[in-house]
């Protein structure tokens, strides 16, 4: 079953547009949603949650149309937007007491077990939590109401490497039994190299690719060579940088001719992102 099924999502703003956004996430997997700041990650996520009105397209979660089954689906979705920036002067305990009333499947035992596991003190105020702890609190809430889909908007931004690694381990544990799916947006691509199964890459409001992680990285080649060699491949390159040793550029694997004596390597997610962003700059 598909946890997320987005088809031909369009949304126009005066200065920005989501164009034909489509991607699918199979149940029980982690999908990394990457893109530069302002590429449309949050807008896409907000439209998944029916917070903004889409111009056209369809969003289905766990097989049901979001626009028609919003309330029912929100019982099964857990989210964290960055940290937890609401009622920050209230104690966690007070907040949870209010929040749990909204959820039919709230499990107090699960909640307390996650509090212990995440070392969250119920008597602390939200403002007293570190960024990582805030994300963990959101996760504890999501998992205690039995969320089948967890949507995280930049959960790891602003965390130190240890806290990030810790969170990534938690994500991987969550999807182990195949019941929970995670979509998380980030621009820290190394996190995804560690834990994502699928990658969806959005750039300037358009989905560039959405596929299995290795497949995604293998679809590109990072070329390097001397400046004179640049002319042979310039037309096929997505974009390139010139430095004192020559050039490095990104090319689609299908456009690359291995018979040339250019050095080719598999790019990292970060490199793919950077070269796509550079391509855009070139047109400006």
């Amino acid at each position: 079953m598909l946890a997320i099924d987005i088809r031909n999502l369009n949304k126009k703003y005066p200065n920005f547009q989501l164009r034909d956004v489509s991607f699918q996430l199979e149940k029980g997997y982690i999908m990394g949603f990457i893109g530069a700041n302002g590429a449309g990650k949050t807008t896409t996520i907000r439209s998944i949650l029916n917070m903004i009105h889409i111009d056209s397209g369809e969003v289905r979660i766990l097989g049901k149309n979001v626009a028609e089954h919003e309330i029912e689906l929100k019982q099964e979705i857990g989210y964290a937007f960055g940290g937890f920036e609401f009622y920050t002067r209230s104690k966690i305990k007070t907040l949870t007491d209010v929040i749990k009333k909204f959820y039919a499947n709230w499990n107090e035992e699960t909640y307390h077990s996650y509090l212990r596991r995440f070392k969250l003190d119920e008597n602390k105020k939200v403002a007293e939590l570190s960024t990582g702890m805030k994300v963990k609190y959101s996760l504890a809430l999501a998992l205690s109401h039995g969320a089948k889909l967890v949507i995280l908007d930049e959960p790891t931004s602003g965390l130190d490497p240890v806290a990030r690694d810790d969170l990534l381990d938690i994500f991987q544990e969550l999807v182990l039994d195949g019941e929970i799916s995670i979509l998380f947006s980030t621009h820290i691509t190394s996190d995804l190299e560690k834990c994502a199964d699928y990658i969806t890459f959005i750039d300037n409001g358009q989905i560039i690719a959405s596929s299995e992680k290795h497949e995604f990285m293998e679809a590109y080649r990072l070329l390097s060579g001397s400046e004179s060699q640049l002319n042979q491949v310039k037309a096929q390159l997505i974009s390139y940088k010139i430095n004192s040793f020559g050039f490095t550029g990104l090319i689609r694997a299908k456009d690359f001719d291995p018979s040339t004596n250019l050095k080719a390597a598999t790019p990292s997610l970060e490199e793919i992102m950077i070269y796509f962003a550079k391509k855009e700059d070139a047109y400006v």
Partner: protein
Amino acid sequence: MYNLVWKDLKLGINPAFLLFPLVLNALMLIPGWIYFIVPMYFCWITMPNIFGGFRAQNDLMFTAMMPVTKKDIVKARVSVIVIMELLHLVTAMIYGIFTLRLYPNLTYYFFAPHMGFWGLCFVMLAIYNLVFIPLFYKTAYKFGGAMCASITAAMLFAGVAQWVGIQSPRVNDIFNGSGADHTALQLSLLIAGIAIFIAFTLIAYRIGAKRFLKVEIL
């Protein structure tokens, strides 16, 4: 819906604002004052503070993340406003009874706190709601303009009503003169005021909910 009302009362509204009417409405004990001012403190102080609090705590996003419909979000918020309004008016009315007993021989220049006057206060808040709620739900976070417009409308009504009450001997007689001792007349004025309050608030809710459906939550 009830969960949302509970959320506002427990998290959103500072408990001081729940106690505020008990203290503030003691102003009703000032003999012969312009009693319209007393419920107006609700519009001047309580409402802007509560709505400022909601915005500062990012309540809109918090609420939107809960499994609730947009319609219920508005319904709950209107209910909370009404709860706060009733809290203010009912405590003021209780203080008003004491005022009437404490100073039995006072000549009132402005309206005396009889039931008929409270009917006018309900109308004043009805007008306040009718202006504030639809204007606020254009964005669901900007409340300054809506607050100014609704306070102006409520004050205009109170000002005109009070002016008529002084200028017209007939109206004066109904609210302050011999009519003031006529329980059936007073009660019917109060009931008419409450009926207008209910009608206007329901209209305000319907327009507000319709507008909020178009709001994008960012």
